[in-house]
C-alpha cells in the first residue's frame, strides 16, 4: 500500500490552488491545440517547453499532465464534427463518429468520445500507480545491452511495424538518427558534425526538431494544398450532450474492450495509439456484424467508444513506461522526456527514489487533469468546435508565430530558427510523400541512448558483439521484435488482398 500513500501525498501537492490552476491551464491549452487539425499534444508540449522554462519544475510538469491528455480529448472533436481528425490516433474513431454527426447525433458522438477517453485514461493511470514502481525496480537489472535492445525494439516497432511502408519508416528513422549524432560526443569529447559552430555543440535541440517537423512542416503542407477543394464543413452540435441510460449501456462494453487493447500498447515502444485504436475499431466492427441489427456504417456508438478508450489508455500506460523505464513510447512521451531533462530530472528506474515527490504529484495531476478534461469536454465540446471557425490563414499564421517564438525563446539563437526552417521544409517533404514523422522524433530521442548503450556494452565485452544478445531479457526482446515484424508483414500482405477498413 506504499503506492497509495505516495499517491495521496501526490494529490496533496497537486490539489493546492496554484497547481490546480496549472492543470486547468494545461487542459485548456491541450484541448485547444488538439482541436486544431494537424496539431496534437506533442506539439503543445513542445511549444510550451521553452515558455515554461521560468516556472518551477513541479508546476510545469503538472501543467504538462493536463496538456498530455488534453490533446487526445481535443483530437476527436474535429474528427467527429469535420471529418478531419486532429491527429493520426483519432482516425479510427472518426469513421463512425462523423457518421453519427451527419445523422444529427453529434452531441452523443462527442459525449461517447469524451467519456471513453476518460475511462481509458483513468484505468490506465490507475495501473501505472500500482505497477510503475515494480516496473522501475525490475528495470534496475537492465544493463547497457538491455537498453540497446529496448532502443532497437523502439526503432523497429515505430519504423517497420507501425508505418504502412517499411522503407518509408526506415527513411524517417535515419533522418532522426542523423540529427541525433550532431553535437559533442559525451564519452570521448570529440566534436561531431558541428563544423565548429558553437550553437551546435549541444546538438540540435529536440524542441527545434519537433516544432519544425510538426508545426512548420504542417503549415507549409497546408500552404501547398491552397487552391484545392476541401469539403470540410463543420457540422453544428445541438442538443443535450449527455448519453441516455441505454446509450451508456451500449457503449460501456466497447469502452472496456478499447481500454484492454490500449493498455498493453502503452508499454510497447510502438509509436503511439494508432495500432490499438484501429484494433479496437476492427474488433467492434466484427462484433457488430454478428448482431441482429448491425449499426456500423450508420453511425455506431461502439465504433466511437472503442477507439477513443484505446487511444487514451495507451497514453496512460505510455506515461508509466516513460517514468519507470525512461523509455518514450510515443512522440508525445518523447517530448515529455525532453521536458524532464530540461529540469535535470532523468526518468528511469531511479526516478521514484530520487524525485518521488514530483513524480507522484505528476501522476496525481494526471487524475485531476482527466476530471477537469471531462468537465471541459462533455458540456462544452461544441464551444471548442468554434475554434475551427478561425479563418485558415490566421490560424496557421498564428501557429507559425508561436512556433518561431518557442524556438527563439529556448536559446535566443537565430541559428536555431534557421534549423527550424530547414527541418520544416523536410517535414513538409515527408508529409508530401506519406512518410511518418513519429520515427524521426523517436530516433532523435532514443538515438543517443542507443549509441551510448551499444558502446558501453561493447567496451565491457571488449568488442565481442555476442554480449548484445547474451542475456535473457535481450533474447526475449529480440524474439518479440521478430514476431512483431513477421506478424505485421503477414497482415500487410493479407490486407493488400482484402481491404477491411
Amino acid at each position, binding site marked *: 500500500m506504499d503506492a497509495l500513500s505516495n499517491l495521496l501525498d501526490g494529490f496533496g501537492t497537486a490539489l493546492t490552488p496554484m497547481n490546480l490552476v496549472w492543470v486547468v491551464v494545461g487542459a485548456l491549452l491541450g484541448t485547444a491545440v488538439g482541436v486544431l*487539425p*494537424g496539431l*496534437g499534444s506533442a506539439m503543445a508540449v513542445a511549444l510550451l517547453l521553452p*515558455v515554461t522554462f*521560468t516556472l518551477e519544475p513541479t508546476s510545469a510538469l503538472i501543467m504538462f499532465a493536463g496538456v498530455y491528455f488534453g490533446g487526445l480529448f481535443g483530437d476527436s472533436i474535429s474528427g467527429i464534427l469535420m471529418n478531419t481528425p486532429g491527429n*493520426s490516433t483519432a*482516425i479510427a474513431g472518426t469513421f463512425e463518429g462523423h457518421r453519427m454527426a451527419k445523422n444529427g447525433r453529434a452531441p452523443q458522438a462527442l459525449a461517447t468520445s469524451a467519456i471513453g477517453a476518460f475511462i481509458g485514461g483513468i484505468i490506465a493511470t490507475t495501473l501505472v500507480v500500482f505497477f510503475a514502481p515494480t516496473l522501475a525496480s525490475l528495470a534496475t537489472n537492465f544493463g547497457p545491452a538491455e537498453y540497446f535492445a529496448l532502443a532497437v525494439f523502439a526503432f523497429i516497432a515505430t519504423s517497420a511495424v507501425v508505418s504502412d*511502408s517499411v*522503407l518509408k519508416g526506415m*527513411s524517417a528513422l*535515419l*533522418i532522426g538518427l*542523423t540529427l541525433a549524432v550532431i553535437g559533442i560526443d559525451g*564519452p*570521448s*569529447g*570529440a566534436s*561531431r*558534425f558541428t563544423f565548429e559552430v558553437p550553437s551546435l555543440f549541444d546538438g540540435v535541440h529536440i524542441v527545434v526538431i519537433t516544432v519544425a517537423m*510538426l508545426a*512548420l512542416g*504542417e*503549415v*507549409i503542407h*497546408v*500552404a*501547398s*494544398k*491552397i487552391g*484545392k477543394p476541401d469539403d470540410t464543413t463543420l457540422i453544428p452540435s445541438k442538443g443535450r450532450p449527455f448519453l441516455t441510460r441505454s446509450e451508456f449501456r451500449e457503449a460501456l462494453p466497447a469502452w472496456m474492450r478499447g481500454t484492454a487493447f490500449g493498455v498493453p500498447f502503452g508499454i510497447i515502444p510502438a509509436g503511439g495509439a494508432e495500432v490499438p485504436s484501429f484494433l479496437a475499431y476492427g474488433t467492434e466492427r466484427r462484433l457488430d456484424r454478428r448482431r441482429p441489427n448491425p449499426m456500423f456504417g450508420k453511425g455506431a456508438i461502439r465504433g466511437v467508444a472503442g477507439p477513443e478508450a484505446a487511444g487514451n489508455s495507451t497514453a496512460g500506460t505510455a506515461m508509466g513506461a516513460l517514468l519507470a523505464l525512461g523509455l518514450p513510447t510515443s512522440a508525445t512521451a518523447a517530448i515529455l522526456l525532453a521536458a524532464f531533462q530540461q529540469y535535470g530530472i532523468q526518468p528511469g528506474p531511479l526516478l521514484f527514489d530520487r524525485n518521488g515527490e514530483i513524480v507522484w504529484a505528476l501522476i496525481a495531476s494526471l487524475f485531476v487533469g482527466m476530471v477537469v478534461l471531462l468537465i471541459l469536454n462533455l458540456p462544452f465540446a461544441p464551444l471548442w468546435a468554434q475554434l475551427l471557425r478561425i*479563418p*485558415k*490563414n*490566421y490560424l*496557421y*499564421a*498564428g501557429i507559425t*508565430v508561436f512556433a*518561431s*517564438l518557442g524556438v*527563439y525563446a529556448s536559446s535566443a539563437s537565430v541559428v536555431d*530558427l*534557421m534549423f527550424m*526552417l530547414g527541418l*520544416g*521544409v*523536410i517535414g*513538409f*517533404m515527408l*508529409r*508530401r*510523400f*506519406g*512518410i511518418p514523422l513519429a520515427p524521426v522524433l523517436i530516433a532523435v530521442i532514443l538515438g543517443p541512448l*542507443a549509441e551510448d548503450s*551499444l*558502446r558501453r556494452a561493447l*567496451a565491457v565485452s*571488449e568488442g565481442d558483439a555476442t554480449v548484445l544478445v547474451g542475456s535473457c531479457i535481450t533474447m526475449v526482446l529480440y524474439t518479440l521484435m521478430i514476431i512483431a515484424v513477421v506478424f505485421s508483414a503477414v497482415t500487410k500482405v493479407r490486407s493488400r488482398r482484402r*481491404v477491411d477498413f
Partner: protein
Amino acid sequence: MSTSVTTDPPDTGPRAGVLTGRSGLVVPALLVALGLFLVYGTVTMTVPDTATSPGPQVFPALVAGFCFLIAALVTVQLIRRPEPVELGVDDEGRPNTGTFSNWRSVGITVGTVALFIALLEPLGWVLAGAFLFWGVSIGLGGRRYVFDAAVALLVSSAVQLVFSGGLGLTLPGGILAAVF
C-alpha cells in the same frame, strides 16, 4: 490531417514520363546527402587520444551505411512501382489530391519565414513577428492585405506583452527599442 492513408497505386494510365509519380526520388536523394554528410564528418573528425575502443565514429558510420542501403532500396522500389498521381476519389468520395502542390503558396510561406529570420534581430520582435504573421497569412490565401497587417501587429504586440512582459522571455527589441 497529418498522415494520409496510402492505398496501393492504381495503374497511372497513358501519361507517363520517366519522372511521373517518381518525385518521391527526392527522399533517397536526401538520404544519400545525409549519408555523405555523415561520411565526410566521420572521416574528418578529430578523435581525442583518450577515446576508448568503440569510439565516436562507429555509430555515425553505421547510420551512414543504412542511409545508402535504404536510399538504394527506395530508388529501386520507386522505379519499379511509381507512386500514384492525383487521380480518382478515395473511399469517402473526396477527390484524391495526391501529391498536388501549390508551389506559389509554398514559396511565399517559406520565403516569409526566411526573411523573418534575417530581420528578427535588426527589426525587433514586434515588427518582424508582425511581418511573419502577415506573410504566412498571404501564403495561405489571405487577400485582405491592410486588415491582415493590423491583425498581425496586434498578434505580435500581444505576444511581446504576454511573453516578454509577463513571463520574462527575452525577445529582441530592435529598432523600436532604439527609438523609444
